[in-house]
């Protein structure tokens, strides 16, 4: 039983990272119906940027003089902004021209963009895993036989808090409404005076910034990263977004946690070598039996 609870904790924290990535997938898909295949790599870039920023703070000899919270805030904000910029650039350079093209076209460029980002990271930091500086002290609490670490709490709290903020943003602000309007009908949104290019870019910015948070948090949580990290994490997060109902913010979160649990319980109680297979099997099953996801809406085909 303790083992089970421990695995649930593992699953939740893993799921929190998937959820943060899934939010970006779901937002971008919601607004331009594109599976932003490169999103997983933006997440990895989040870790890379965090490492670079901490490195810079450290290099200037300030790391140990600065309060921990400030270091974290600067790193997090930096990673978010940089990832956001990467996302906006992706949209501008690789996707915008293809907004009205058949759907396969931007999907193929997305795959291409993913490869390009991976190789840029490989050029930058080499092909091997890179250690993530351990700036945050990891405190572990013991409840009977169950251990709970502050990092695990951090991941889950981060994910939930950002999802809540995102919900509020989308439903209660002017820009959020503009995003929803653009998602539903781009031309009509333009006729309301909404600058859709700006709105779509904003969506990419926010989605990518959230991936940046994911990258930062996962760096702290795992203590390392490498250039190819985003491939599988991205696929699993996409699975999470689909599972939750793509286009649905709460769904992405729910899906992320479910995928995290499935993976961790499979690894813990069946075998680690089947964990990935289990996740993809789940993806196939969801798409076949409930393509609209757990919280998604069923829409009729238009004729």
């Amino acid at each position, binding site marked *: 039983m303790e083992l089970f609870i421990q695995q649930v904790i593992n699953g939740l924290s893993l799921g929190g990272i998937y959820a943060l990535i899934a939010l970006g997938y779901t937002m971008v898909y919601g607004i331009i119906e594109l599976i932003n295949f490169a999103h997983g790599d933006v997440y990895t870039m989040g870790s890379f940027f965090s490492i670079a920023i901490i490195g810079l703070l450290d290099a200037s000899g300030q790391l140990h003089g600065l309060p921990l919270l400030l270091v974290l805030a600067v790193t997090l904000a930096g990673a978010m902004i940089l990832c956001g910029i990467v996302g906006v650039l992706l949209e501008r350079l690789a996707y915008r021209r293809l907004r009205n093209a058949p759907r396969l076209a931007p999907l193929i460029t997305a795959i291409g963009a993913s490869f390009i980002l991976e190789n840029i990271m490989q050029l930058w930091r080499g092909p091997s895993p890179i250690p993530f500086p351990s700036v945050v002290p990891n405190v572990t609490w013991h409840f009977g036989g169950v251990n709970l670490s502050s990092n695990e709490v951090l991941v889950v709290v981060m994910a939930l808090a950002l999802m809540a903020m995102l919900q509020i943003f989308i439903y209660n602000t002017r820009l959020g409404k503009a995003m929803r309007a653009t998602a539903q009908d781009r031309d009509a949104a333009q006729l309301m005076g909404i600058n859709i290019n700006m709105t779509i870019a904003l969506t990419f910015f926010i989605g990518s910034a959230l991936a940046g948070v994911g990258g930062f948090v996962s760096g702290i949580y795992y203590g390392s990263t490498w250039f190819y990290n985003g491939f599988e994490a991205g696929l699993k997060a996409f699975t999470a977004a689909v599972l939750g109902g793509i286009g649905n913010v709460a769904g992405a979160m729910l899906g992320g946690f479910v995928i995290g649990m499935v993976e961790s319980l499979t690894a813990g109680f069946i075998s680690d070598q089947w964990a990935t297979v289990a996740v993809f099997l789940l993806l196939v099953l969801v798409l076949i039996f409930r393509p609209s996801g757990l919280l998604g809406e069923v829409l009729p085909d238009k*004729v």
Partner: protein
Amino acid sequence: MAFFALKNVTKTFGGLVAVKEVSYEIQPGQIAAMIGPNGAGKSTAFNLVTGLYVPTSGEIEFDEQTIGGKKPDFVCKLGIARTFQNIRLFAFMTAVENVMAGRHVRMGAMLWDSLLHTPKQRAEERRVREKALELLRFVKLERHADDYAHNLPYGFQRRLEIARALASDPKLLLLDEPAAGMNPREKEDLMGLIRAIRDRGTTVFLIEHDMGLVMNISERIAVLDHGEKIAEGTPVEIRANPRVIEAYLGKSA
């Protein structure tokens, strides 16, 4: 069983009732129509007939079979063809290829024939091309046989869609707002075409907003409003029906 009938058909999307308990029977050889404002459920009714949607309840009968919930290709094979409200041609195929694609369901080439281009396959391709050209002549588009569908003017596209639908030798042809956007002259031609189709032995069932056209060629009309059938009858009966006047035509009609 009837030649064609909707029997208490209901379709809901989520909590919304798009079509509610609609019954409508059409006799072979008729030109029948369904009218009503947008959102009244006319296109939904068509989509139910051709198998795009599955009825929530009720039954659809055609040619001694129940077809409610059957797949579009199955329904087409049984002998129902359709056109679309917003034209859905294969835009980057030529006119004749469009019509040949419409013949798909009456062709017999199997995988093996396709792979190896057997003599049987070649002969069939020739026959089907001729048949397609003949249909293009019927809708007066023979000169555009090798043009891409998307390069044709609007009115031609509507006619090409009808030719494509006829290629499957349908017993029942569904026309979804065939006169939309046509000027009076084009409408005259269309009425002639619809009658000619009926005279070839195909029953016609159409949705239309243009009251002139509907009243002129239909033998039977159903009126839909908010998903419910509020009247059914001959054009004369419909025009005099107080519920129709109140809900649809307005006092001035």
